[in-house]
């Protein structure tokens, strides 16, 4: 259902007095109002949100993002993640990092990290380890790769578990990818041609539905 | 105690006053501040006035110069207002180029002059396409305590009424002009537009707000009235007004306009 700012969400259900409101809906007194134009989604029993294909990223706690190092000062890095202000990342928040042994990161390098803290009143904080101090897939991204910016709507589509796009692209050209929730996607492949093919597929996916992208992937070979 | 309370909780302080149907300066909601007008305060200008609306003080000086009319309006002179908000009038301003508020005020005053048609620019023309009067109206705010436009318009209208221009003889064949300083004539100001500002705070409408009230209020409306007619209803945004509220403001400003017009008339007679 398409909704617009100011609309009242009807029949809001709550469980034990709790209603979960996602992006695009906000409480206004006793009612719930829409704050963005887009499609209203409801997940039973009590979750509501509005989906809108936006370009500007607003940091959310727990998001995996691709960031660019913009400043180095002592043990602290400032990372541009596309939000309203740069996030901070400690040099010690990498796997195996100690006071003496720190990762070699320069201004302009890319990192894949998780937002530990993203409160609107505070500077966002990024980490490259999980709660067991293991890196997992997080950490610096190689300079060999290629960074593209896509809309946030496409990121959500790519990250859906059953989405066939990435698998289909992989059949045409093997590649490595880091998809950031902030709309930044890092791609690396065996050759420049492979990388460019992936980037082209993403560009097609930006404007067309899944089936068109799959057809396009088949033509790549 | 109340002074500290005002600084720590400005909104609550204001709301508590309004809950008792009184404003922090002791006025009722529909009560405006006293207005003082003084004509001819600047002897070197061709026309001048000082207007005080409460503590807001605006000085207006009008200087006349001879110039050539614009090609597209060959039989019209010029009247150019300029509002200045020097650092003296409020701590909000710093020395330097005109602030956005000053520029917006200048444009609003120019629009009010144009809309009300209070001075026919054709009367400023001496000889079509060759010679006309250009009136520079400089409005300087000495003390800013809200309702800037109201004070500017009062000062400007009073100053315009006090302008006297010397007689000019122009000979187009020789392009020769003769100015007779002894023989001065007043301008023919056809009507007097009067501006009234309202502030809205929590559904309450306050007439003639002070600067504190303006800062706290959620929206402002300026209504200009001339001879039972409206010539400007300016609400630049902010929270919503219903039609009834807006029309009530129009009614209030019509009432206030007659009072101010009398004040200017009295000041003019005592000149």
């Amino acid at each position, binding site marked *: 259902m398409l909704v617009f700012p100011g609309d009242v969400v009807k029949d809001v259900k709550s469980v034990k007095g709790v209603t979960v409101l996602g992006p695009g809906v906000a409480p206004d007194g006793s009612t719930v109002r829409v704050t*963005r134009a887009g499609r209203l989604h409801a997940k039973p029993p009590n979750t509501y949100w509005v989906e809108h294909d936006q370009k500007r990223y607003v940091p959310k706690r727990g998001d995996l993002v691709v960031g660019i190092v913009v400043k180095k000062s002592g043990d602290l890095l400032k990372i541009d993640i596309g939000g309203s202000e740069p996030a901070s990342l400690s040099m010690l928040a990498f796997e195996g990092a100690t006071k003496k042994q720190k990762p070699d990161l320069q201004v302009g390098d890319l990192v894949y990290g998780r937002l530990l803290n993203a409160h609107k009143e505070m500077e966002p904080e990024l980490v490259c380890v999980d709660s067991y101090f293991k890196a997992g897939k997080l950490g610096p991204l190689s300079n060999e790769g290629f960074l593209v910016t896509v809309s946030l709507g496409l990121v959500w589509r790519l990250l859906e578990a059953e989405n066939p796009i990435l698998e289909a692209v992989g059949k045409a050209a093997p590649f490595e990818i880091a998809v950031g929730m902030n709309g930044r996607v890092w791609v690396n492949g065996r050759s420049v041609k492979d990388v460019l093919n992936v980037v082209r597929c993403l560009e097609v996916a930006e404007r067309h539905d899944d089936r068109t992208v799959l057809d396009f992937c088949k033509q790549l070979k | 105690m109340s002074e500290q309370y005002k600084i720590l909780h400005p909104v609550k302080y204001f709301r508590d006053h309004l809950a008792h149907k009184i404003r922090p300066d002791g006025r009722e909601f529909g009560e405006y501040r006293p207005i003082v007008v003084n004509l001819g305060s600047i002897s070197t200008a061709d026309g001048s006035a000082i207007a005080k609306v409460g503590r807001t003080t605006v000085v207006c000086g009008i200087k006349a110069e001879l110039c050539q009319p614009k090609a597209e309006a060959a039989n019209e002179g010029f009247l150019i207002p300029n509002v200045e908000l020097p650092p003296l009038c409020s701590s909000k301003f710093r020395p330097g180029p005109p602030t956005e508020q000053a520029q917006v005020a200048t444009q609003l005053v120019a629009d009010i002059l144009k809309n009300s048609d209070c001075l026919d620019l054709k009367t400023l023309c001496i000889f079509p396409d060759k010679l006309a009067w250009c009136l520079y109206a400089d409005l300087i705010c000495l003390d800013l305590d809200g309702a800037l436009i109201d004070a500017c318009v009062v000062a400007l209208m009073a100053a315009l009424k006090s302008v006297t221009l010397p007689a000019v003889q122009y000979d187009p064949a020789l392009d020769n002009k003769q100015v007779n300083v002894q023989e001065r004539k007043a301008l023919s100001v056809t009507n007097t537009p009067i501006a009234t500002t309202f502030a809205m705070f929590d559904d309450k409408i306050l007439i003639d707000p002070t600067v504190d009230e303006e800062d706290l209020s959620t929206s402002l409306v300026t209504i200009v009235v001339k001879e039972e*007619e409206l010539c400007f209803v300016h609400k630049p945004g902010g929270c919503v007004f*219903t039609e009834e509220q*807006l029309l009530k403001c129009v009614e209030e400003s019509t009432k206030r306009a007659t009072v101010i017009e009398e004040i200017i008339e009295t000041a003019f007679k005592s000149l």
Partner: protein
Amino acid sequence: MSKLKSSCKLGILSRPDGSVLFSQDETTVVAGVYGPVESKANKALVEKACVEAHFRPKSGLPGVKDRLNESIIRNVCEAAIATAMYPRTSVVVVIQEMQNNGQLISCALNAACLALLDSGIDMKCMFAAVTCFIHKDESLVFTPPINEDQVKAMFMFVFDSVEKSIIASHTDGSFSVEQYKDALSLCKEECANMFDFFKKSLTIK
């Protein structure tokens, strides 16, 4: 009375977060919105976002007249955007005039609303601006007369989408209270069409 013909194209610019090419009758503007972005230290507000408006005329540098337009656009956008959700940030609205046929401010405001909707920034409500004119023969029209001398007065109203109340009012020329009331009710009717147009444009996208 003829209705105004509006058309728009959303997302025409690649860099801004929301953009639109909007035309109403023959007046055309391009609007772009950036936000929320990092705000300058001297402009940042602790409890809400700071809204900035920039108005660029068709030719030359912005003058005193454009400052007034900017202040109206800024104040109206500030009333509609849920500024409390983005503290210490800026929302920048940039309007470029392309062609002016008399209803420039209302066109700029409608474009700003569409660009804000396109950017997906949280808003309390939508807003629509409507301009109408009084002919010398006292008739009310939406399209400006070809000859400028025929216009007795101009009214511009901005309404919100929730309560249909007045967010902004701007007038030109002198008129009676009755005429003001008539123009107000006429524009209020027309604003419903504007909101329908906004909804239709966003649905197609």
